């Protein structure tokens, strides 16, 4: 079953073509990693999926329902109303590079906020889900702490739990370990691996090549706003054919 589908996505920042016709379809339970050099458009692409960026051209659909549909004449992306976008996009969980936890709320309040306000769950229901998730990410003892009291790795694990609390159908990870000290990366990757074992549908933008190779069903290499190569981790990361991937992999080694 197709969860998300993107056709011919284009995005420009002033004169810079950040995305030049991206096509991607992700099936339920599939884990897709997007790799590539800085400025290749990976993050912008991910952010287009839940409307943190607005695409200029192309279509985006979620379970076959269009969020943005390409106009047949002009190719312009025509979006559904903001209200409809919100109701679709809360099915997409997002984890940011910089965590973006709510600093004025304790860990538990970070987790119950959206389920209560957006999904109209009662506090008891929301706290039940939140406590289970905190246990899952190994942070039950930090329930009442505030974000400033947590390490980067702990913050990111809370951020993952917060996104999961909305019971998303797909998780988007935007360089989840890039802002972390090296010794804290492992604990975050461990949580993502656990989600992979449960077959959570995920799209992960990452610079962690070993991690991408290990957990992905499919790896996408992006450069200059285009998908240069796409395939199994072996095809893209182990035996790359494309010279640009070879250069990139040598650089990040």
């Amino acid at each position: 079953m197709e969860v998300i589908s993107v056709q011919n996505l284009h995005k420009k920042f002033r004169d810079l073509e950040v995305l030049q016709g991206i096509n991607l379809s992700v099936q339920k339970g599939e884990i897709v990693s997007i790799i590539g050099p800085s400025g290749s458009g990976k993050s912008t692409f991910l952010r287009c999926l839940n409307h943190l960026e607005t695409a200029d051209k192309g279509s985006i659909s979620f379970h076959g329902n269009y969020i943005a549909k390409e106009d047949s004449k002009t190719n312009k992306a025509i979006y559904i109303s903001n209200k409809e976008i919100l109701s679709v996009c809360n099915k997409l969980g997002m984890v940011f590079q910089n965590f973006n936890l709510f600093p004025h709320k304790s860990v538990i309040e970070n987790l119950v906020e959206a389920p209560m306000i957006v999904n109209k769950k009662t506090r008891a229901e929301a706290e039940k889900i939140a406590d289970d998730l905190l246990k899952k990410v190994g942070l039950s003892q930090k329930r009442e702490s505030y974000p400033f009291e947590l390490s980067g790795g702990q913050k990111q694990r809370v951020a993952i739990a917060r996104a999961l609390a909305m019971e998303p159908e797909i998780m988007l990870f935007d360089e989840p370990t890039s802002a972390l000290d090296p010794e804290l990366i492992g604990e975050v990757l461990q949580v993502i691996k656990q989600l992979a074992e449960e077959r959570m549908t995920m799209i992960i933008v990452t610079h962690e090549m070993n991690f991408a190779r290990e957990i992905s069903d499919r790896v996408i290499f992006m450069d200059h706003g285009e998908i240069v190569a796409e395939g199994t981790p072996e095809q893209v990361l182990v035996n790359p054919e494309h010279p640009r991937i070879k250069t990139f992999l040598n650089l990040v080694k």
Partner: protein
Amino acid sequence: MSTEIMYQVGGFILSGAVVAIKVYVATIVFSIPLGMLFAMGKLSRCKPLLWLLEGYTWLFRGTPLLLQLFFVYYGLPYYGIVFTPLIAACVTFVINYAAYFTEIFRAGIQSIDSGQYEAAKALGMNYSQTMRRIILPQSLKRVIPPLGNEAVTLIKDTALCSAITLPEILKNTNSMVTTYFEIKWYFFAAVIYLVITLVIIQVFKYLEKKFGYYR
């Protein structure tokens, strides 16, 4: 000067403090919410509203408060609008201070990292939920120090109302000084202002502490 007269004079000047505090409370109660509202207007995409608020803050921050007081109390009667000194003072102060608070809140809201909006949106929260639950509470913490500054300035600005015959601290002090030729009443007035500002400073220290539970 007999003790009895001293008490009378002191009491008369203190009654001015009550008037000053009335103006003070009215200004705080009305201009802070107004400022918050106007700040959101200033951040909206509605251009005419933006220009209107831009003109408003320019006018009221760009002209002397004393001039505004004169205009409201002595000027508006020419257009058939007559206020008592107290109402004229309150109206002028609310509009004037709301202009400063608008800018303080605008800066406070704009200082919140865009990641907070993005996180809220990614969780499905709409604009008003995001503002109410995520952005405004965080900006409130950041605007407390500049609000405290304004709150201290405000009590001293009430002295300007003596120019529109409002019997507040300075006006009453002046009339006592000229009646009895004793300048010590100026010191008395100064002490009243100092006591009031001390209270205000303590309130804001408490607020800063209250919001200090997170960073």
